[in-house]
């Protein structure tokens, strides 16, 4: 079977090439750095958009594991509010609503 399977020496180039140009792919990181990047991003999001975590867990329904998690998320959101970390998001949201409400 192997003998008759077609072997290619070159691989067809995709239409349009790569989405990320070669020049931008010369520098970069490792899978560990991807994890660090994602983890730091998630932590920052948990600080500044804590309400999202709480509402996402609330939408998942009830359950022996979920209810304690939901309580923790609600307390976390409350703590972030007390620290005023949710204020920038609230200010952006209010500005966007003002823009949406504007009329000609």
């Amino acid at each position, binding site marked *: *079977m192997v003998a*008759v*399977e*077609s*072997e*290619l020496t070159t*691989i*067809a*180039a*995709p*239409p*349009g*090439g*790569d*989405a*990320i*140009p070669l*020049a*931008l*792919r*010369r*520098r*970069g*990181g*490792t*899978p*560990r*750095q*991807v*994890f*660090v*990047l*994602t*983890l*730091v*991003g*998630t*932590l*920052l*999001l948990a600080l*500044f*958009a804590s309400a*999202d*975590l709480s509402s*996402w867990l609330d939408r998942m329904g009830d359950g022996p594991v979920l209810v304690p998690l939901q309580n923790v998320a609600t307390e976390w959101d409350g703590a972030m509010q007390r620290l005023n970390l949710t204020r*920038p*998001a*609230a200010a*952006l*949201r209010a500005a*966007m609503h003002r*823009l*949406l*409400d*504007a*009329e*000609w």
Partner: protein
Amino acid sequence: MLFPTSGFLLFFLVVAAVMAALETRFATKKAVLVAASYYFYAQWDWRFCFLLAFSTGVSYVVGRLIGAARRRDRRRLFLATGVTLHLGVLGVFKYLDFFVLSANRLAQLLGLSHELPFFELLLPVGISFFTFHGISYITDVYRGDVKVCRDPLDMALYMSFFPQLVAGPIVRAAYFLPQLARPSAEPIPLAPAMLLILGGLFKKVVVANYLATGLVDPVFAAPTSYGGPDLLLAVYGYAVQIYCDFSAYSDIAIGLAALLGFRFPPNFNQPYRAERLREFWRRWHISLSSWLRDYLYKPLGGNRRGRLKTYRNLLVTMLLGGLWHGAAWKFVAWGALHGGGLAIERLLEPLIGRRAQTPAARVIATIVVFHLVCLAWIFFRAEDFVVARLYIEGLAGGWRDGVQQAGPAMVALILVGMAGQFTPPALFERAAAALGRLPVWGLGATSGVAVAAIDALGPAGVAPFIYFRF
């Protein structure tokens, strides 16, 4: 599980952690990615996983059979069987009720009282995409454009890889499978990948979602309630919305794949700056238009069998391309408008040339092509032909009323979306280079703050991507 949600972020965090822990164990990484992809797909409906596994099995077995067959007629038979099986699955799950509805309407017209019952099957999300993946693989094996895939794990990952599973881009086997042969020696392009993901999130969460809820949906729901200015701005709004929605998905998919160490082809390239309809299709949903060109238009004869057959082939390709988008005649009409437009453009080529020559002619050509595309979008977006007709009638006649729905914010979003069509490509490269100078934790922190800002700017909740239903 939608990309712009906390659930997906945590899912990706786990995947990234496992990828980091596995370091150089490439085969295990591939197995983990297959498992993660099936978990991701099961979030819609776990039963769909069996369909995905079936399509994967068909592609794998047929690919091996074609590769092993010595005689051309047997290779052809295996290819035909594989394509039939793939199209059969697509036909049953996506088009069965459409055929029943069309048959019942025809029976009504002929005065027959009997009606066929509907099957009401659930449409598996992404079925059109993984079916096209499977067809392109076995066709490429038949043509000798790709090596036969001998590793079932590679085939499973090619068919199910979660960044592109539900809405593309349609990545060719000849492009993706070699990436599974050995781990990439390239570094992971962290900054460009994050820039694509952040840009995609902004386009989807802010631009597309607000345009949908604030302008497009209400105007298309009752076009007779609005005057010409609102109707015109709503169709411009839809042009921007569908671009920002779909290209956002593609950008996020490309960025996620890059973070996992894989390369994807581009899927969009500022389509609304096209000066010809043909150019529009080289810039819009590039992976689909090139798929249709290579697996439908060219096998039909392409432009090699005379003018009339070229026009016919263009029309047939675009009609079927329209039908691929959805099981409804309005999508066929959308395809017919594009196919007819492409044919007329070819017919007029001796008069208008392949490209506009002067700057003024280029501007005029871009405006004309954009409005032709917008006309076709009316059929694509309208609920049915009646709504599309009312919409076009309103555009043609109702210009006495002022603007009711399209406020300054909606116009600003349309302008933002259109401005993105004309930014120089170097801007992305410069921004990526600037982000790339940050340390990894700085890039992560910047991304986290940017996502929080996008989330705050967007409306509550996330609407599904438009192309999920295709």
